[in-house]
């Protein structure tokens, strides 16, 4: 196993210890249950934003904690959703009285655990809501699946909602914004190699020298289709067109109804991209692909967007939502409006995203 680790079962904890000693100015780490939180939390009167998910996607989410982004992040075991007690303790720690938004990626494990946390937080009097991110167009329908997975748009939602909370948006406004970001973002990814879950010690799947997995998630799981590896331009085109040409997608999600005190089903529909849309283009490494290759992909993506009349007005290129050391990439396009652009540009100061301050 080609990893800089000690015992596999200590992977998450030791990595968190490293973060804590490296960034005491930005974050603190709580152990048992594990969560990372802003060193200046709780921020009185500010909506608190908490995310979380399995570990192995670093820098997401733990390195996005800080001014202008997350108030706390709950890391689970590798590729395993965190548990409700982590989420509950994080909420108690960072709630500044203005309520808490859980940003949740749409995986059965994450959804169930965050729902349990929401129920628990409600019983101790914290105003908590959760909003799902489900942006992976590789998952075709929502009727016969768990629905689309939450991938790249999560990073963008965390930045944009974090900025909004920092600017004083109230809980309802932050929630509405988060839902809007999700409905306007779409992603797809591919893998050139598998990754190895430390506790397992061997690659999750094996790919031939000239094979790739198209339409993967972020947990080292196989994708929609295995195929011959292609040129960067062809791979970029497959991802980009799947995203751009994706048609209307509708799904039913569960949101907490505060008045009724129970979960209600809400139907959400997002609209396809259109000519003259302004977008943020996010080219992401799955962890093992270096940034030089991401720029080759970005180059082709820019060309395709231009041909399609889609205007890239912001971008993000780098490893931000990864699958351990997997080689491969994903593309996310997020349709932006003026408000989202302002919030994207707003200052952010976290271990991994930082600008304007």
């Amino acid at each position: 196993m080609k990893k800089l680790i000690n015992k596999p079962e200590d992977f998450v904890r030791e990595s968190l210890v490293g973060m804590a000693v490296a960034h005491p100015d930005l974050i603190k780490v709580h152990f048992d249950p594990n969560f990372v939180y802003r060193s200046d939390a709780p921020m009185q009167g500010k909506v608190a934003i908490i995310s979380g998910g399995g570990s192995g996607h670093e820098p997401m989410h733990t390195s996005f904690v800080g001014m202008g982004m997350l108030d706390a992040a709950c890391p689970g075991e590798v590729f395993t959703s965190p548990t409700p007690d982590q989420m509950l303790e994080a909420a108690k720690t960072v709630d500044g009285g203005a309520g808490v938004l859980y940003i949740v990626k749409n995986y059965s494990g994450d959804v169930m655990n965050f729902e349990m946390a929401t129920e628990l937080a409600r019983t101790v009097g914290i105003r908590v809501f959760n909003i799902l991110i489900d942006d992976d167009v590789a998952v075709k329908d929502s009727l016969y699946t768990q629905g689309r997975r939450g991938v790249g748009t999560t990073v963008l939602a965390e930045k944009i909602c974090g900025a909004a909370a920092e600017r004083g948006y109230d809980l309802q406004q932050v929630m509405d914004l988060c839902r809007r970001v999700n409905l306007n973002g779409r992603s797809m990814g591919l893998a050139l190699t598998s990754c190895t879950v430390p506790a397992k010690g061997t690659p999750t799947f094996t790919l031939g020298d000239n094979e790739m997995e198209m339409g993967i998630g972020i947990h080292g799981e196989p994708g929609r289709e295995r195929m011959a590896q292609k040129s960067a331009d062809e791979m970029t085109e497959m991802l980009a067109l799947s995203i751009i040409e994706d048609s209307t997608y509708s799904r039913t999600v569960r949101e907490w109804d505060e008045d009724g005190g129970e979960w209600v089903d809400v139907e959400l529909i997002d609209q396809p991209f259109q000519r003259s849309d302004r977008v943020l283009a996010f080219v992401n490494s799955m962890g093992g692909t270096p940034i030089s290759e991401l720029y080759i992909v970005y180059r082709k993506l820019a060309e395709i967007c231009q041909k399609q009349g889609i205007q890239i007005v912001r971008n993000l290129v780098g490893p931000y939502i990864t699958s351990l050391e997997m080689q491969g990439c994903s593309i996310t396009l997020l349709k932006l409006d003026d408000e989202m652009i302002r919030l994207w540009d707003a200052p952010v100061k976290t271990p991994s995203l930082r600008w304007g301050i």
Partner: protein
Amino acid sequence: MVTKDQIVQWLQAFATLLEQNKDYLTELDSEIGDADHGINMDRGFKKVMSQLSSVADKDIGSILKTVSMTLISNVGGASGPLYGTLFLRAGTAVADKQELTDEDMAKLLQAGLDGVKERGKAQLGDKTMVDVLSPAVTNFHQALNEGKNAITALQQAVTAAEQGMKDTIPMLARKGRASYLGERSVGHQDPGATSSYLMLKSLLATLES
């Protein structure tokens, strides 16, 4: 009558079986999931084992609820809340009891299944734990209704569970991570269904011994 000791032995036997099948379950999960199911279940039940002595003098309901809480806060993923809810509901169904009648056993199993279905929204045929738990519970009820005793009923339930587990192989997954694979999920046995079969198998083995 199923005694409290037997319940504790069952949990121990299940933990042992999970440890032995950790790699197997994880392997199944790498085919159609993310290669952690065996790791998750083993981690959870190791923690359960470490807590068991502190609650062994409580009633069966409390023991099962402790199992539930331990799983919920140590497993994570999909299986954490699902097995957590299973044991929570099972424990609630037999609250305060020191031993269980055949009827209590039926209630316990039914409540656990209901909990899983409610939490995960999976139907029979979705290629999940439900495909093992549901036929098992149905067969247990049926056998009791036919006048058989709990052990015989459980034998039939485990046979149905094993069949249910194998039946997940040709299924197209509709819930959980495997559903993202679409057609590619066909031809693989569901890891969660497999761990549920092991749970029932270890219950039977405990009661038989």
